[in-house]
């Protein structure tokens, strides 16, 4: 178990150095992305002016407040509460995010599936688990909303956050075929028959 302090954007080598159960703290820039954002980008031909190469994206749609634009709030949005949503719904977007935009890290909760794990292996990336439902804490790691694109999709816009000491996050899927979720799932399913037996049920 190694701790990595990474300043984004990162290189392929940095992404491939991450192993399941390592921990990561991110610095500088983080992009927020969600279902509608990726449906627009990958199903409806929308593009973003942001350069996501080597960057980390987090599955989120934040609570924001409209304010007068200022150096602190250049977009006219102040963060209220920024958290993380369930990643599994966005499984099919991992590969295109990496292939077309060069994204290296996906941050979310609940994990991704086999297609994403394959993409991490082939293209060099990793999934970093954040603790879902701990948005009040997560918000304290975000310094500002620096920029926003595709804002007609608000709150599912493409957000650029300035972050500081974002983490620790846990590497839950890596570029070497490791997935903490798969490991836990296999073990849990192995226990199914025994657990049903305690309930007096003979499992089929």
């Amino acid at each position: 178990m190694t701790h990595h302090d990474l300043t984004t954007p990162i290189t392929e080598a940095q992404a491939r150095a991450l192993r399941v159960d390592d921990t990561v703290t991110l610095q500088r820039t983080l992009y927020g992305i969600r279902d509608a954002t990726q449906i627009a980008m990958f199903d409806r031909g929308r593009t973003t002016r942001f350069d996501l190469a080597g960057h980390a994206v987090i599955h989120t749609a934040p609570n924001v407040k409209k304010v007068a634009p200022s150096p602190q709030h250049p977009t006219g949005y102040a963060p209220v509460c920024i958290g993380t949503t369930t990643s599994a719904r966005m499984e099919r977007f991992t590969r295109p995010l990496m292939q077309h935009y060069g994204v290296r890290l996906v941050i979310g909760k609940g994990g991704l599936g086999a297609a994403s794990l394959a993409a991490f292996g082939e293209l060099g990336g990793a999934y970093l688990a954040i603790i879902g439902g701990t948005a009040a804490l997560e918000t304290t790691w975000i310094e500002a909303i620096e920029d926003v694109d595709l804002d007609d999709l608000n709150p599912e816009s493409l957000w650029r956050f300035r972050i500081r000491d974002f983490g620790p996050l846990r590497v839950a899927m890596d570029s070497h075929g490791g997935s903490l979720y798969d490991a836990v799932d296999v073990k849990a399913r192995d226990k199914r028959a025994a657990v049903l037996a305690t309930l007096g049920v003979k499992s089929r």
Partner: protein
Amino acid sequence: MRIDPKTIENVSKELYIRALKILPPDVKRGFDTLAAKETSSTAQNVLGTMIKNISIAEATDNLLCQDTGIPIYNVTIGRGVQFGDGDGTALKAAIRKGCERATREHPLRSSIVHPLTRKNEHTSCGIGVPVIHIDHADAAEGVRVEMIPKGSGSENNSWLKMALPAEGVDAIKTFVVDCVLDAGGKTCPPTIIGVGIGGTADLCVHLAKIAATRALGTQCADPEGAKLETELSEAVNMLGVGPQGLGGDSTAFAVHVELAATHITMNPVAVNMQCHSARRASATITDAGVTYGF
């Protein structure tokens, strides 16, 4: 008594914001109980972060979770209550307005869209939303309003099985265990696992929701249902899914069961889960004023 719809509106606004910020004491105790028994160091760490988040939300007056959920209002009306000069329609309109005001005035992320156009009105309202359930209680004085912002991570994992009578209670137990396995970390465990048993298909799912949003430490009123709660609560925590699906003993705070009579040909079972941010707030409105609680 006569209740001014404006009072209902203000209470509905206040309840949405309170529910999003302050976790009920029974859920906080639930965390302590799980943490005291957890044997995995990863899971201890995850639970520790969740507990820390609860105090940060209170200290910074912020929302516990970014998901403002689907707003649900459960209203229980006591004897002889009237709303303004009107009836139940005034009540529903007032709740809706309160929900909309909370969203605009706090402000909160409106998580509600039209199901086909996906258009967001940025009011947390839409066709049939907020969900409003109205019930009457003979003994109660005044009105009780309970607000539940139901998170989507857990709601997206909801199941109904129309099992057969010949499959018996075994089908119900097996179904619950399999739902927990399928949910993995997607429901933001530790969860409250709500199990609805019996009724019609729609009632069965509704019972599962009532079970999932009931306070921890409460029991099913039916003794057979209560027995099943105890058995299933122990069983699901032997699976090792753990908080966030990262492994550990703390998969669920509890399994709650609600049941209704059913047809001789039917054996329906539904599962609805509540995430660890098991948020709810309530208010009681009487002649003496408004009292907030959970």
